[in-house]
């Protein structure tokens, strides 16, 4: 156990799996800090520093800098996965999905099923996501609802350094393609992380806080907003349970259902755009399977149905706030 940042926890996971299994390779832009320059190696260690030090230990044969061609990056990683490697491809910003979706949607995700179970594609695609950096409309999206919609993919969205490490190790060992999403605002968050290697299973939500008045479900950065709101609610005598699904595919429906059975009220907080979102999915699941327990409408607190604006005032208004969560929670509790 030691205080470790989210970023470092990811780095630890990559390092320990690369030590354990020589088939694990890292593929992406500047993952080795760039190549062919006149300066030093490992200058960046990945644009967010997640892969720092790995090229030093494992060399360029296993930490592979590539041209800026995401279809070739993801496709190459998928083809390598089909033929015996366990690649971890880095997409940098999830927004770049746009230039390589086919290799995920129609290729990697479908091989196992389409080829009658004869193909294994142990591929991990890492990408950062989320607003809060004033990075503008093309560098701030969530897009995890796309991946969650696609059969054949597993989708991991950690909220803490502990989960980040355990889930990434699990992702690398999984035989299906795994989309591993890292919220840009979480890299510097610190937490206690075991120094040894461990896994966190997919499809098991984590209860971050227990309370009998309502259930709040949130992912990644939104779990922190939800906990903030829950603290505020507690001051008003309202006790919320906060649940982090941690993976949206598979999705742990049972844990949410059990909580709603106890609280009768559900609020889902999702940073993404609202339509066909993970928030919508969770609301639909409970409206279908947990209807009898519901004492109030299911509320979704999401970003508006707009692109992410650049100007800080607008971006702050875009991102779901703990105040909005608190207000919605109070409405639910008062609802009759």
């Amino acid at each position, binding site marked *: 156990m030691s205080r470790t940042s989210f970023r470092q926890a990811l780095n630890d996971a990559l390092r320990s799996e690369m030590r354990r299994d020589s088939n694990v*390779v890292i593929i992406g832009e500047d993952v080795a800090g760039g190549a062919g320059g006149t300066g030093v190696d490992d200058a960046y260690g990945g644009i967010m520093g997640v892969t720092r030090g790995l090229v030093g230990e494992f060399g360029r*044969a*296993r930490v*592979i800098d*590539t*041209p800026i*061609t995401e*279809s*070739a*990056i*993801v*496709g*190459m*990683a*998928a*083809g*390598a*996965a*089909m*033929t*015996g*490697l366990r*690649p971890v491809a880095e997409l940098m910003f999830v927004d770049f999905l746009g230039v390589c979706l*086919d*290799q995920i949607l*129609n*290729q990697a995700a479908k*091989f*196992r*099923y*389409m*080829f*009658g*179970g*004869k*193909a294994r594609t142990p591929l991990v695609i890492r990408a950062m996501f989320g607003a809060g950096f004033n990075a503008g409309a093309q560098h701030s999206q969530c897009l995890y609802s796309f991946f969650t919609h696609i*059969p*054949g993919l*597993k989708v991991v969205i950690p909220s803490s350094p502990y989960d980040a490490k355990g889930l990434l190790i699990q992702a690398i060992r999984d035989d*299906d393609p795994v989309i591993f999403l890292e919220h840009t605002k979480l890299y510097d968050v610190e937490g206690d992380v075991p120094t040894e290697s461990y896994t966190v299973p997919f499809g098991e939500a984590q209860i971050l806080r227990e309370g009998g008045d309502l259930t709040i479900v949130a992912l990644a950065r939104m779990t922190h907003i939800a906990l903030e709101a829950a603290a505020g609610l507690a001051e008003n005598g309202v006790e919320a349970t906060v649940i982090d699904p941690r993976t949206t*595919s*598979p*999705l742990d429906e049972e844990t949410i259902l059990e909580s709603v059975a106890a609280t009768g009220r559900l609020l889902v907080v999702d940073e993404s755009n609202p339509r066909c979102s993970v928030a919508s999915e969770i609301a639909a699941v409970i409206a279908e399977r947990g209807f009898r327990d519901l004492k109030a409408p299911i509320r979704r607190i999401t970003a508006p149905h707009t692109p992410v604006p650049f100007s800080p005032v607008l971006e702050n208004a875009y991102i779901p706030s703990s105040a909005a969560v608190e207000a919605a929670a109070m409405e639910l509790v008062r609802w009759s």
Partner: protein
Amino acid sequence: MTLDRQTLLLAYKTMRRIRDFEERVNVEFVAGNIPGFVHLYSGEEAIAVGVCMHLEAADYIGSTHRGHGHSLAKGCDPKRMMLEILGKAEGLCGGKGGSMHIADLQRGMLGANAIVGGSPPLVIGAALTAKTKRSDRVAVAFTGDGGSNQGTIFEAMNMAVVLQLPAIFVVENNGYGEGTAAKYAVGAKDTAQRAAGFGMPAVKVDGRDFFAVYEATAGAVDRARAGGGPSFIEARCARIHGHYCGDPQSYRSKDELTKAREVHDPISGFRRRVLASGELTATELDSIDRCSAEEMDDAVTTAHAGTAPPVEALYTDVYAAY
């Protein structure tokens, strides 16, 4: 270039087998026994065979929507292919893939691909595996002339050059992408010259001539196995059937269609040549024809006798939430 008799016999046998397979598929399709749509390889046999005869089972190929020829040339079982095409449980993909998704990973066949330009990025991944594991395997990406314009193949070619991967890009230029002519859609009239611009050896060969394809591939495969990086081959040929079974092909002139069948046929060309040179005898070739015909009768009969997949198969081979 002169080849030993075994090689010549195998080449003829495989081309014949592909042709017979495709013509049977055509009959079955017209008879309404094949679900979905199929794209026939007839007329392009010399390419798949000329390339794949240089490959071991351990080597890799990535294919296209027109993948039956590549699959057979790489050693897939015609029975299990026909079973797949008819959607039977005993098919190579258990009936879940069909004509456009035939794959056989044991034989290094990474899959037919219904996305034009879908294969090249995957193929360089197989090449990366070979390079990373220090095996001497090579990986071949087949693409059509239409697909040769797709951004994915350019990205894959550049990546293969940058990482010096043992990959070979084969563009089968049959003159058309659906109804659009290559000479319209390929701004660079010459895809080999375009590929050379990416920094790899690139040649143009007559894809109707087995010997030309075989020779060009030899160099590319040797280079790749020796760590010399990727190569590119454009092979020109003529499509005998339509883009898909049932395509009226009015975008092609009668004359062109006749020539495709009668003048450009790679198999009769091969036959003429080896008989003229006396390298093989008519008796040998005729017996190959007979065996091939029987083999295909057999494949079709087996396919019809195959069983439909159980409905439960809908939910297997994938993580399904519900």
